[in-house]
Structure formats: structure tokens, C-alpha cells
């Protein structure tokens, strides 16, 4: 093995067997299933040319769809940030009949396929649906409007914040909260100044996951969205439409745009997280 003579060997010597086999399977499958396909998308883009990509993306219909996707995803993730922290708190701290059921129900959006959620939400919020008819009487239209998309995106992102924050709450040392009380702080002051800062990094992680999921979401949204160009058309749908017209270049252009914006967003959120951990995470 040449690794012995190198200053920094690729892999440190270990008595454990099977590195070659395990690494071989990992890299091969990762390449075939994920890396080569993503590279194919980027190559297609390079082939098409930056100018052409810009020309394809720079149209009102596409900007509107991208803006809609990201705006509603952000709002849905924001809702889930607040509701998820409440859910996590209730599930971690309170004992009440039906708690286990509630705890399991949080995972339902993960367990229910997106297409199933999509048609169920549509049936529920359509003008003749159970919720839809009540809302219609109040003059509110949800299905086939941006509200409908928001409802669907809230549904798919619901578990993320709750599930990342819940274990953190369970690990909080109760003495810290007691200390705050003995120093004269009201319960609300304790929650605001002691508990919330401890939950922030995990809550931001959950927010980022919910956001990433919502931006790319397709199945649960297309049924309830109505898909009206310029109004309720989400970005992933545009890719499907281009593909159905065998317009691969345009599909690739939009796909690359979405990929870049997702990565930029993830990067930004990671930076916020590093910042928040540094500020409050002196663990």
C-alpha cells in the first residue's frame, strides 16, 4: 500500500476489514443514482449555454412561478416554525390523554404519499368540500387559489420543526428553568429569555428542511393549485409542462435555476445557523 509513504494517506490504516468493498458500493451507487444524473442536468445546461438558459428563464411566466414557489414555501415554513415549536413543547412537556396519538399524527405527512395528500386536501377545501363549503359561506376561496397551495405546503412541511425541536426540549436541564424562576423571572420571561434561545438552532434546522421540502414539492400541490399560468403555477410544474412538450433544453434551464436557488437558500440558512450557534451555542 502506497498510503504508508504518503504524508496524508487517503484512508488511515485500520484493522477493520471491508473498506474497499464498502467504499466501492457507496461510490458506485451514489454515482449511478445521484451524481451522474445531476451532472447530466448541468452538462445539458452547459451545452444549452448560459445566454440561452437566461433567455428561457427570463420570462414573466417563469419568474412568477419561481417567485410564487419560494414566497409560499417561506410562508409555509414560517407557519410550521411557530406551530412546530408549540407542537414539540406540548408533546415533550405535557401528559394528557391521547398524547401518543397526537405524537404519531405529527408523522402522518411523512407517511402519507404526496398524491394522496393532494387529492384529499383538494376534496376537503373544494367549494363543495367539508371545509371548503364553510369557508365559501364566509366568502373565502381556498382550493384553486394561492391559499390552497399554502395549505398543501404547510401539510408537507409540518413534521420537520416539531421533530427537530422535540428532542432538544426533552434534554433541557430543568434546573436552568428553576434557576430563572428563583431569580424572580416570570414563566413567560423564562420561556422568552432562557428556553427559546436554547431551541433556536434546532428550530432553524427544521425551518430549513421544511423550506427545502416545500420549494420542490409537486404531488400535494398540483391538485389543489388549479395551475393557472401567472397565478397558481408552481415552478416544478413548469418543468413537467416543458417535458410533456419534449422541450428538454427549457426543462433543464428551469431545473438548473431551481437547483441553484435551492442551494443558495440552503447555504444562506446554514450560515444563519452557524451564526446563531456561535452567538448562543456556547455549549
Amino acid at each position, binding site marked *: 500500500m502506497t498510503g504508508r509513504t504518503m504524508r496524508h494517506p487517503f484512508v488511515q490504516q485500520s484493522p477493520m476489514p471491508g473498506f474497499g468493498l464498502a467504499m466501492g458500493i457507496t461510490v458506485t451507487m451514489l454515482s449511478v443514482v445521484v451524481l451522474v444524473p445531476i451532472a447530466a442536468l448541468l452538462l445539458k445546461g452547459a451545452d444549452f449555454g448560459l445566454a440561452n438558459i437566461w433567455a428561457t428563464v427570463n420570462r414573466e411566466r417563469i419568474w412568477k412561478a419561481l417567485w410564487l414557489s419560494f414566497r409560499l414555501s417561506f410562508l409555509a415554513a414560517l407557519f410550521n416554525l411557530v406551530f412546530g415549536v408549540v407542537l414539540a413543547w406540548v408533546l415533550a412537556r405535557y401528559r394528557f390523554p391521547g398524547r401518543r396519538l397526537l405524537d404519531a399524527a405529527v408523522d402522518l405527512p411523512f407517511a402519507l404519499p404526496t398524491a394522496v395528500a393532494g387529492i384529499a386536501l383538494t376534496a376537503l377545501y373544494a367549494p363543495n368540500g367539508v371545509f371548503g363549503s364553510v369557508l365559501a359561506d364566509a366568502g373565502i376561496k381556498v382550493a384553486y387559489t394561492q391559499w390552497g397551495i399554502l395549505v398543501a405546503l404547510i401539510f408537507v412541511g409540518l413534521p420537520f420543526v416539531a421533530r427537530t425541536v422535540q428532542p432538544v426540549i426533552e434534554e433541557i436541564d430543568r434546573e436552568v428553568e428553576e434557576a430563572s424562576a*428563583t431569580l424572580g423571572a416570570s414563566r413567560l420571561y423564562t420561556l422568552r429569555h432562557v428556553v427559546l434561545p436554547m431551541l433556536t438552532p434546532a428550530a432553524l434546522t427544521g425551518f430549513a428542511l421544511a423550506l427545502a421540502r416545500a420549494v420542490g414539492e409537486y404531488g400535494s400541490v398540483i391538485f389543489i393549485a388549479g395551475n393557472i399560468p401567472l397565478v397558481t403555477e408552481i415552478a416544478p410544474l413548469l418543468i413537467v409542462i416543458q417535458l410533456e412538450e419534449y422541450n428538454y433544453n427549457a426543462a433543464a434551464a428551469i431545473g438548473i435555476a431551481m437547483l441553484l436557488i435551492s442551494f443558495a437558500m440552503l447555504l444562506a440558512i446554514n450560515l444563519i445557523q452557524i451564526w446563531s450557534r456561535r452567538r448562543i451555542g456556547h455549549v
Partner: protein
Amino acid sequence: MVIQIDEISKLFGTTAALHPVSLSIPGGALVALLGPSGSGKTTLLRILGGLEYPTSGRVLFDGQDATGMTVQERRAGFVFQSYALFRHMTVFDNIAYGLNARPRASRPSKAEIARRVTRLLDLIQLPQIADRYPSQLSGGQRQRVALARALAIEPRMLLLDEPFGALDAKVRKELRQGLREIHDTTGLTTVFVTHDQDEAMELADLVVVMSMGRIEQIGRPQDIRTRPATPFVRDFIAG
């Protein structure tokens, strides 16, 4: 402040952590609650601090019934075994916490808070660490910061749960002296919980020996050493 404990008992479910116990602590005394784990000493301390509610009996501060007072109203400076410092706040913000948490009407000005924090840092002989975070402190420093944080609210009494439990032997000895000095400077009625009989005997004016939720003996250190009231006390201080 005079603390009176009148027939206090505490049940957790069906197990009795405290059988009815009574105890009077004169104002300004430094008292040790001494006993093995499970003797009920920490439960008693937490009832004094308002962190637990007794199943029966009363707590009186200066002759006033304080049993129903909330923890916030009691103004007991409480030092926890784990210190329970706020790890996302600097030492300065930790010590200033109780003052900042007051309602606006009774909150001191920023300058006044800074002045008090500086004075407390001098008192615990750590004037340079205001900007550090708890994770950057040694165990002994953390304990002293916790003490300063408790003193910042101008407490009516000082309650300490195993204040030296998490420290190594050398630091422990130094900090014992530190606590004695702070007690003598402030004149606060001070109650601390310990399982270490040397610590109790060396530091306290009055030692309360507890076992299985009962008080075995109350007395000055030398009395307990020379005249143990029960076989348990004799065995415990000998061990």
C-alpha cells in the same frame, strides 16, 4: 431572616420523601443539612426555595406564613448543584439576569445594573470574566458565578444544593472559605445541603443531620461530634 419549618412533610406519589419535620433557623445563621442521598435534605431545601410544595405543614419567614408564596415572591438566592448557568449568556448577563427580569417599574437603570454586577464580580474575586461564557469557565469559577447571580437579586436568604459537589478536593477547600466569607459579609441566613460531614462540620454554625426523611439531630458541630443523638448519627459522622 428567621426561617421556621413547621411539621413539613412531602409525599411523592405514595413514598414519603419527608416525614413531618420541624426546624427553626435563627437569622443570619449558616446551616448545613447533612445526610446521605435519599435523606430528604434536598427536598427540604427545595420546599424552602418554593420549588416544591409541601404535602402538609408550613414554612414561616420572620414569623409570616410563606408556604403559599411563589418562588418569584420568595426572593431566595438559590445555587443549584449543576449551577444551572445560562450557557447562551455571558457571565455579566447571567449575573444581571434577575435584575433585568424585574418589571420596568422596579428595574434598576443599566448603569446601576452594571455597577452591581461589577461589585459582585469583585466579591467573588473574579473581576476579569464578565465577557466570558459559562463553557469557558472552570468548575470553581462557575460555582462562584452562580453564587454571584443568586446574590444579585438581593435575596432574603441563601439556599445552596451541594454547592461543592461537582468540584475536586483542592478547589472545594478554597471555596468553602469563600462561602464563609460571603456569608459573613452579607449576613444572610444561609442553608446548604451536603453529604460530606467534614464540609458540614467545618463550615456550618448549625448542623441538621437527616436520614430517611427525618431529622436525626440538630446541633452545633462540636455537640454532634461529641454527643451523637442516635446510632445513625454516630455511624454517619464516623464514616
